[in-house]
């Protein structure tokens, strides 16, 4: 009995020591880490503060209720959502293939998938034009056989955004799949589930948080897409002019409008972040 008490006291003392040590560690943050760290934080936050400081708060209601802003916002939300849907439908299976099957050249395929992640979006736009443009490698046939033209259409916007956003989703979902125990799929198979049923009824619900996170990342990326969109889909108000394009254009003619539009995008981003935080907190 006394032995137990003693050991309890000993662990208490240990915990106390641990706590003290941690406090000391916090006090002794080395300057070469502290200074750049604080600078980095300032660097990330200050531009956003400037945006808020210089915002034309009086004229904001009129700026934001103009038809063009609404058009651009609507188009942005719609195309980003559609692009995310495309990413989900095609990207989740691709992530599964990368995570759960073995085939020669898998590493190379994964590198290809991540390429749009590091590729300048403008280059992506040019590449899309060459592939899906009216005279493009595939676009030629799309036009001749089905009468489908993608460049400079709203669908083109979705294609450009999906091209840029898909890697975010695939990488995120593949990571979640790798972390998920594949033996759950095996267990489902021994219960008579085909591999697809096992995926649908077991794996998919298990990795849902990862898919949601990937989808939000992809959606945010699609919403802010500029380079590939303007190259592949052009800049037609109401058809292909998304918010980022409208911001860029407004900055040249009407800087106050550009700031107002930027504020809207900032608000959307913050809303996404806040929504995500709640979701991640409840699912984890």
């Amino acid at each position, binding site marked *: 009995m006394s032995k137990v008490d003693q050991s309890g006291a000993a662990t208490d003392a240990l915990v106390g020591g641990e706590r003290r040590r941690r406090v000391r560690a916090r006090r002794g943050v080395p300057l070469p880490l502290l200074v750049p760290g604080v600078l980095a934080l300032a660097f990330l936050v200050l531009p956003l503060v400037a945006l808020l400081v210089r915002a034309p708060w009086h004229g904001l209601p009129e700026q934001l209720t103009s038809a063009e802003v609404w058009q651009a916002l609507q188009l942005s939300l719609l195309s980003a959502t559609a692009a995310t849907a495309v990413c989900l439908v095609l990207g989740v299976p691709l992530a599964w293939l990368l995570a759960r099957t073995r085939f020669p050249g898998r590493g190379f395929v994964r590198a290809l998938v991540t390429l749009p992640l590091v590729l300048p979006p403008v280059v992506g736009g040019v590449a899309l034009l060459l592939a899906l443009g009216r005279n493009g490698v595939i676009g030629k046939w799309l036009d001749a056989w089905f009468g489908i033209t993608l460049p400079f259409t709203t669908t083109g916007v979705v294609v450009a955004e999906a091209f840029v956003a898909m890697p975010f989703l695939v990488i995120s979902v593949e990571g979640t799949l790798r972390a998920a*125990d594949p*033996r*759950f799929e*095996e*267990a*489902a*198979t*021994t*219960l*008579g*589930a*085909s*591999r697809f*049923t096992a995926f649908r*009824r*077991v794996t998919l*619900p*298990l990795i849902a948080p990862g898919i949601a996170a990937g989808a939000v990342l992809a959606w945010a990326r699609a919403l802010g897409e500029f380079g590939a969109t303007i190259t592949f889909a052009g800049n037609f108000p109401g058809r292909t002019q998304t918010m980022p394009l409208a911001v860029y254009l407004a900055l040249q003619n009407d800087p106050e409008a550009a700031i107002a539009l930027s504020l809207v995008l900032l608000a959307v981003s913050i809303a996404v972040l806040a929504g995500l935080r709640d979701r991640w907190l409840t699912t984890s």
Partner: protein
Amino acid sequence: MTDIDDTTDRLTKGVNGAGLDARLVVERGSFRLDVPLTAAPGDVVALLGPNGAGKTTALRALAGLVPLAGGHLRLDGAALERTPPDSRPVGVVFQDYLLFPHLSALDNVAFGPRCQGATKAQARAEAAAWLDRMGLTEQAGAKPRRLSGGQAQRVALARALATHPRLLLLDEPLAALDARTRLEVRAQLRRHLAEFEAVAVLVTHDPLDAMVLADRLVVIEDGQVVQEGSPSDIARHPRTDYIARLVGLNLYRGQAAGHAVRLDAGPSITTTEDLSGPAFVAFPPSAVTLYRDRPTGSSARNLWRCRIAGLEIHGDQIRADLTGELPLAADVTTVAAADLDLQAGAAVWATVKATQTHAYPA
């Protein structure tokens, strides 16, 4: 003796085709598993062996999760070698159960019937009946993380049984449980396995689990079957050091001539059996008596000079690990250990009465 039994077993199985008839050959790098396995409906067979012996691989091969490199697999007369796991009439209880964490206990059990084409309502009714049989009606709506270890184990068993398998596989069914629940769950599992009318194969490294749960043990070492038989037979006549250690016997191999078995290692042991040719001698650690000085009045024929290599508490006894003329394990009471002043490195005399040894042909 057992060989003849096995052959007749196999012959009768050949006639009506019921039960399991398999030779599992799996190759993985330099490791080769080659295990023949037969069982009649109602049999509970335990694959027993040390870690890495290939027990779980054998189980996975039976389930179809690992392809066979050779051999055959017939269940109730049907060849299953090329059948994918989802079409095999095989149920598996995995070591850590692998209950689907997003589904309730009920839906976990209903998963199998659903996959076999039952409607949602049918599947749930069937699942509810299984949970009821397992005494888990109250836990039907609970998610797996809210279940205790024993409850999770029973849900896993219900889930495997709900597909009406003709072969039930259990991978270390009790390993994930703490000592106290283990006792209780072992008894329940024994009851459920006794009720199960088809073949059950369980994998374990715990000899007690194997002996309590199974009618027949198949001991696997390094991918090969080293011994096969009833629990009592194996406990009495171990044929390898691994099994001898498992069942707590000192085991030696040598050449028998009359009442003496000359060990390959050197000394000979006097036994009561009259044998000739290669033989095993076994005796329990409790049959060993230790002396500090050479005993003079002892009637024991078997007397060896040993040195204590280690001591450990073993229940209310102290088990001494001895080296020297004959390496052996000896159990002494704590009082005796204190009287003898036993400590690592001490020299002792060990004796075993011939009547307490047991010799059998190798």
